[in-house]
């Protein structure tokens, strides 16, 4: 455990940023937190979390995959990816940190997605324990401890200082590189801070939310559940929940004809979109009910089925705050039998 006096916070950021790109939550022009590159003068946001999740760092909304040149009947392929450089993300919350494991379970299993892998290898995640969770938080439901997030380094804020704990080699290396700014940390202070946070977590309205009714082996039982009709009824079929979700990982691959060649890129896609499963000979999910069901079944049943019971949701609460019609995974879980 190391300690960083908040007075030295800027020096710390400067030192990290001197070696690699440092990203941290910053308030944008409408006062909402988003990850931005640290530069001198940039202040960290005090918001609980960013509007968009931290998945962007490893799974950006759009990314170029390759290019093609077509002349006459011939086709040439060019791998145009840019080399990924080392970077640090500072201030990731427990929920988002947990989401990386979920993304890994998709992108790092065979066949490995090299685009994702490269960014994952080059990124160091510094997490920040929560001290003021919101009513929309329910990470505890999925066994995530907001007071003790994962990540390469974990940070707790205690009076006037950050306590930092390296959890991985990458984390050790990061702390070592700024060792001259750090002092010895205080385990007890961290425990106190954690206790405080956990006390608040227990009082949150969704603290008692359980995963009863969903999870492994529930496919047959839930797929034809009558509640899907009313749950999905007012869904707009937009991609808001998907795009703010830290664990949604579906993508589309598209080609763009620049006039001088074809750029093939991938971009986020949403299973809520009506064309998600549209193919040349039809669409296997024609109604919003089917699409809505897919999204929640995937997170709450199919994913756990494939991943030893781990849920595809980390309880960050973004979809609760952002859904235009306030339909969300909590309402779904409760309707399907979850207790609160």
């Amino acid at each position, binding site marked *: 455990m190391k300690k960083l006096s908040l007075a030295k916070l800027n020096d710390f950021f400067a030192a990290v940023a001197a070696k690699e790109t440092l990203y941290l939550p910053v308030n944008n022009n409408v006062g909402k937190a988003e990850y931005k590159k640290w530069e001198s003068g940039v202040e960290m946001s005090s918001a609980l979390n960013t509007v968009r999740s931290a998945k962007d760092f490893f799974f950006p909304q759009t990314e170029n995959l390759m290019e093609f040149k077509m002349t006459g009947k011939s086709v040439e392929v060019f791998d145009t990816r840019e080399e990924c450089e080392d970077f640090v993300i500072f201030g990731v919350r427990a929920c988002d940190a947990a989401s990386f494991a979920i993304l890994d379970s998709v992108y790092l299993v065979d066949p490995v997605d090299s685009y994702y892998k490269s960014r994952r290898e080059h990124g160091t995640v510094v997490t920040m324990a929560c001290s003021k969770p919101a009513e929309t938080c329910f990470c505890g439901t999925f066994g995530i401890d907001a007071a003790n997030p994962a990540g390469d380094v974990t940070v707790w804020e205690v009076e006037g200082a950050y306590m930092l704990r390296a959890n991985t080699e990458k984390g050790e290396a990061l702390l070592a590189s700024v060792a001259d700014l750090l002092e010895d940390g205080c385990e007890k202070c961290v425990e106190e801070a954690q206790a405080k946070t956990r006390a608040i977590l227990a009082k949150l309205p969704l603290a008692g939310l359980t995963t009863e009714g969903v999870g492994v082996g529930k496919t047959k039982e839930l797929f034809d559940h009558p509640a899907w009709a009313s749950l999905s009824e007012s869904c707009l079929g937009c991609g808001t929940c998907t795009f703010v979700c830290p664990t949604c990982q579906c993508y589309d691959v598209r080609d763009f004809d620049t*006039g*001088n060649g074809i750029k093939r890129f991938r971009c986020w896609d949403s299973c809520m979109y009506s064309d998600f499963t549209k193919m040349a000979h039809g669409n296997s999910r024609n109604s919003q009910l089917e699409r809505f069901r897919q999204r929640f079944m995937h997170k709450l049943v199919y994913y756990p089925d494939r991943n030893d019971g781990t849920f595809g949701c980390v309880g960050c609460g973004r979809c609760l705050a952002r859904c235009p019609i306030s339909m969300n995974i909590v309402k779904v879980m409760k309707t399907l039998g979850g207790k609160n």
Partner: protein
Amino acid sequence: MQDVKEFRPKIVAFCCNWCSYAGADLAGSARLSYPADVKIIRVPCSCRVNPMFILRAFQRGADGVIMAGCHPGDCHYTSGNYFARRRMTLLFSMLDYLGIERERTRVEWISAAEGAKFSKTMNEFVDTITALGENKRLEDLRCKK
């Protein structure tokens, strides 16, 4: 000497078949020149010009887009240019509102008999766009070499 390549704008001109395209033909017959930077796309009527085409041109690298049609009241289809006029008025105002240079887009009414006006308009427009320089605010970097 600096090795600066002279800026030659790319200009797309949408011309209605009945008046302005014929005006361009007349400019040609009369050998009234205008810069080669102007390339004409023939449309049946100015009302065929979709704002999407104009944005598309900017995306693909145009530096200026001009739409030319029959004089109001002279539309071959009676009313096409009146609708086009409203559409373009609103679109141009919106582009301006977004801070995109107002001068990059223009509408002119040029009749089949106005070869001279066609040539003059195109010369002027090329000058305007050359002075403005490259379109940066509505560019799509993917389409640039």
